[in-house]
């Protein structure tokens, strides 16, 4: 499992900066918010938590088709599926590698980007914590979506349509964890979503992968 995670991470760094691309996309999304709604700091600081979360969500979406696609095309995935490790383990490794190469960088990038949207000073810690706890759910859900659309050529748009509604509870609790006066309860609920996704979805994803590879 560690070998797969390490391999995916080094690939993400090698492939013309897939990691950098995700963060750059996040930056562009955040920069576009004031263009769309105007530069007034009071308004921006009010919508900053939601905009940062939506930006992270969309940036995650952009990187999902990379999870299995390359391995599927060159046959590595077939080889991995017949390898002695269970498919569920492979899926978990893939999702973790995805989180390390997108969720974690996005969490770190959100802090300076919060500055651009005048995020209130007291919310930086909660922004960091909610993204740190919430983005693993995005990676596990996204891996599931990527497995569903694996055999579809140019399935990027469909992947978004399938995955975004599944992101709803994560987004709701993620933003609430920043703006709700009772931060810890919302963080706990967010953690429940992440743990649930990490514990259950790999089995279902493996099921979908096996169907797709048959």
């Amino acid at each position, binding site marked *: 499992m560690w070998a797969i995670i390490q391999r995916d991470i080094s690939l993400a760094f090698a492939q013309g900066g897939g990691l950098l691309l995700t963060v750059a996309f996040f930056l562009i999304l955040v920069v576009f918010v004031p263009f769309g709604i105007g530069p007034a700091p009071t308004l921006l600081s009010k919508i900053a938590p939601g905009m940062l979360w939506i930006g992270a969500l969309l940036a995650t979406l952009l990187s999902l088709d990379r999870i299995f696609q390359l391995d599927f095309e060159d046959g590595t995935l077939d080889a991995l599926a017949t390898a002695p490790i269970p498919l569920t383990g492979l899926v978990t490794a893939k999702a973790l590698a995805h989180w390390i190469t997108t969720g974690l960088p996005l969490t770190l990038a959100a802090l300076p980007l919060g500055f651009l949207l005048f995020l209130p000073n007291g919310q930086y810690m909660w922004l960091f914590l909610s993204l740190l706890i919430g983005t693993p759910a995005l990676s596990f859900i996204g891996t599931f979506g990527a497995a569903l659309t694996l055999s579809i050529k140019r399935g990027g748009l469909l992947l978004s349509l399938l995955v975004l509604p*599944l992101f709803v509870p994560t987004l709701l609790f993620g933003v609430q964890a920043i703006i709700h006066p009772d931060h810890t309860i919302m963080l706990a609920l967010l953690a429940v979503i992440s743990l649930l996704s990490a514990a259950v979805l790999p089995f*279902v994803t493996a099921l979908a992968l096996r169907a797709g590879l048959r």
Partner: protein
Amino acid sequence: MASIWQYANPAKFMATTARFMGPLWVLSIATLATGLIWGFFFTPDDFKQGSTVKIIYLHVPSAMMAINAWIMMLVASLIWLIRRHHVSALAAKAAAPIGVTFTLIAMATGAVWGKPMWGTYWAWDPRLTSFMILLIFYFGYIALWEALEDKDLAADLTSILCMVGSVFALLSRYAVQFWSQGLHQGTSIPLVTGERQVDDVFFIPLLFAMGGFILLFITLLLLRTRTAIRLRRIQALKAKET
């Protein structure tokens, strides 16, 4: 011998349902028409809402069936995943467009009703939001069916999506309650609340309308499943020719 699973055989399913389709159509249209006509023409106006209250005969049954159609899809999907009956997978596929239509009816009539009652066509109220999410789930489910060439694979993957989608739709349903306060009043069906809040004059036609929507759903579901089986046969015959 008489096991429910014998209807999982497509030929058996076609033969059995063919006998029921006619009477089922008559029964469902009659029940639905009774409920709607009775409700529209022969119920008194509400002392507060005026004639606007009559939207209930479309709004409540369609909202109920919009959710039940998804639950039926979930059951059919599980049956496909566990027992691999083709009719079951096709029935799940057939239910989705009906579910979309009922969701749209519930949302459209609700919007029209919301304007005079709450002063707005749309609000991010938990129930409205949940229906919007439900609608998006229906769209995703249908899109996945359409995108996959291999129909057995499509049945597998859509069933899995339906399963996961159900869990996340439920999570969203509770998540939105933390996020927004509701405008809707609680349910007024005595079966659920244990006491009756709606007067009989309103309630009996409402029961007819609900029965009509249930029957119409079953009729349309069988009809669409039969169509799907026929289309599958056409595909198979064409594949043989070439």
